[in-house]
């Protein structure tokens, strides 16, 4: 049973999350449940519940949120963000939580692998010669297997 010091509640972790772009409005959530009711992921997987995630952030449950697998189940379909009566950007908040988790190394392997691929070759899927041959056969223009401009840009940023 989670145990909270009142001064911890909605300060600490919540204040950190509120700084992230897109997550500014989470405090105005009054738990009406429209997001959970409309969430296509929630209908299939009981573990995922956007209303509960926001509440855990407000309660300052940093480890449960960032190390949990729930935040990675969101299909970022924006249904909740479109319908939230308080105008909270819920999808962008979940993405912000993923960024925080990724920074602390809790991202699932698939996600970090995808990020690495893009940083290394500027593309998610490399286009080797075999791909290039298939494209020529179908009469499609060939594309560079790597986008140097992109990888350079991201190295600078590192």
């Amino acid at each position, binding site marked *: *049973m*989670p*145990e*909270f*010091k*009142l*001064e911890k*509640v*909605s*300060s600490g972790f*919540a204040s950190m999350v509120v700084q992230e772009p897109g997550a500014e409005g989470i*405090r*105005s*959530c*009054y*738990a009406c449940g429209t997001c959970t009711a409309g969430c296509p992921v929630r209908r299939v997987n009981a573990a995922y519940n956007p*209303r*509960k995630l926001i*509440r*855990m952030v*407000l*309660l300052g449950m940093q480890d449960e949120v960032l190390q949990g697998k729930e935040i990675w189940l969101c299909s970022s379909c924006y249904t909740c963000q479109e319908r939230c009566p*308080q105008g909270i950007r819920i999808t962008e908040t979940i993405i912000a939580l993923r960024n925080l988790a990724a920074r602390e190394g809790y991202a699932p392997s698939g996600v970090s692998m995808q990020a690495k691929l893009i940083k290394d070759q500027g593309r998610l899927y490399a286009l080797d010669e075999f791909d290039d041959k298939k494209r020529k056969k179908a009469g499609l223009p060939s594309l560079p297997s790597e986008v140097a401009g992109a990888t350079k840009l991201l190295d600078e940023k590192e």
Partner: protein
Amino acid sequence: MNPLRAEKTIAVFGSGETARRLSREFLDRGRAVLLIMSRDQDTGDVPEGAECVVGGELVSATGQVGDFTLVLRVAEKREQHRVGFIVLAYESVREPVYDILGEPAHERVWSLSHLETQLAEGVFPEEYGKVLFLDRLDGVNSVAASERLLKAVVTAQEEHEIACCLVTCQVKVASPGLEMLYGRMRDGGCFVARTDLLDLEVNPGGIRARFDDVVLDDELSVSGALLVVAERERAAPELAKIAEVLGLETDHAGYLQGDNLLRVPCLTNRRGVLVAGGSGADLSDWQRAQNIPSVVEEVNSLSQWLDEVTPVEQIIYDRDRCATCLTCFRVCPHGAILFTDKPNFLHLACQRCGICTSLCPNEAIELAGFEKPSFFERLFPGQSGEKQEWPAAVTGFVCQRSADLVRQYLDEGDPVIGAVRWIEVPCAGALRSQYVLETLARRAEAGGVLVVSCHRDNCRSGDGTIRAAHMVQQVKGLLNTLEMDEGWVEHIPLAPNERERLHREVEQFQARRKKA
């Protein structure tokens, strides 16, 4: 009748903010005000120009609107005052909701009022800066109580950087501005938990609340330095005594405005006796802001009515038949009968409900316009007395509030309603069982009697509906003992906007009568 020399002074009972503001409003409009404050209240700034009686307790009040005589006991002495209007403006009393805790006394548990004074005087101890607010958990908190609670939390957060958590069952926001205030509270960092079950631990170090959080679908425990308990509003203690002296209806919570919807906004069952602020109900800020002007408006309108009205006899009283049994005095819902050696009918207070005429055992009193001969006349035109076969019509007695519905149908030539012979009565409570039996005695096979009244708690004359229902039960009892079909008579409680339902009920009654 000499033109009435109506008294202009307004008696205002109460010593809180409402009574003071109301007195000032009257004084600003050039009215004389007699302010009657109870003893233990600090008199503070008595509105200048008001005659003030401190520690006055109302012992008796006789007379009617424009001419009340109040007898006050002031420090064992009796004072008599003549006033035109009586306004009861006591503040409601706040009572912390300690139900959860059992014994309230603990330095880490404060009432909301205590917190408000501490914050106002800036003496809030720093180390208490983590406050758990506990609202009622039965979900019936009033809008006014919720408003005070939300305001306290926002003040604590915004002006004193206090970390707050609110545990409540239903957040009440049904008043202008409350939803935005609730938003400000959450944006300010207040964590809101909604539950109806809570376990509390109060120990020297602070307080811990454990509850099931519906959203987390898990048990949650939050600990803080201080517990502040919300308060519920109660009618002021003085009201029960005043209600008795003035003969006023009270509502289920002891307030002076009765549950009757027709007492909106500041009326009581007695004309000229008005209710303001916390004496009428537990008012939100918005309602309070409308309440005071609407009391002023009612006094101004009544004053204008008194200036222009020439009093006319409402009740015709036959001294010889009267057995001075006080029945009329006892049943009058509007305090319009003053009993000395005989009943004195106060014609300005009388609201013409006619209940007294129906219950007078010796038929010593009649309502002007509804005297028995003319009443019988309308009941059996051209029949004065002898029994005659009556056409197969159902007779319907309808109270004046719903009579319009009947008239509309009759104007439209509706066959169903048209098949009934309707008699308008001032109030269904004014119907004697004798009229019903008289009608039945002249019945033909498909005949019958309908008594249409208002709904309970919706009758201008208080319990007119209940008396009508009793009368119909009485008649049914008689029919039963005579082994006759009780279905001859039926009572239909109806609101003046239930046009379609009246039609359905009458149609069904006629169908039943045809079958019987």
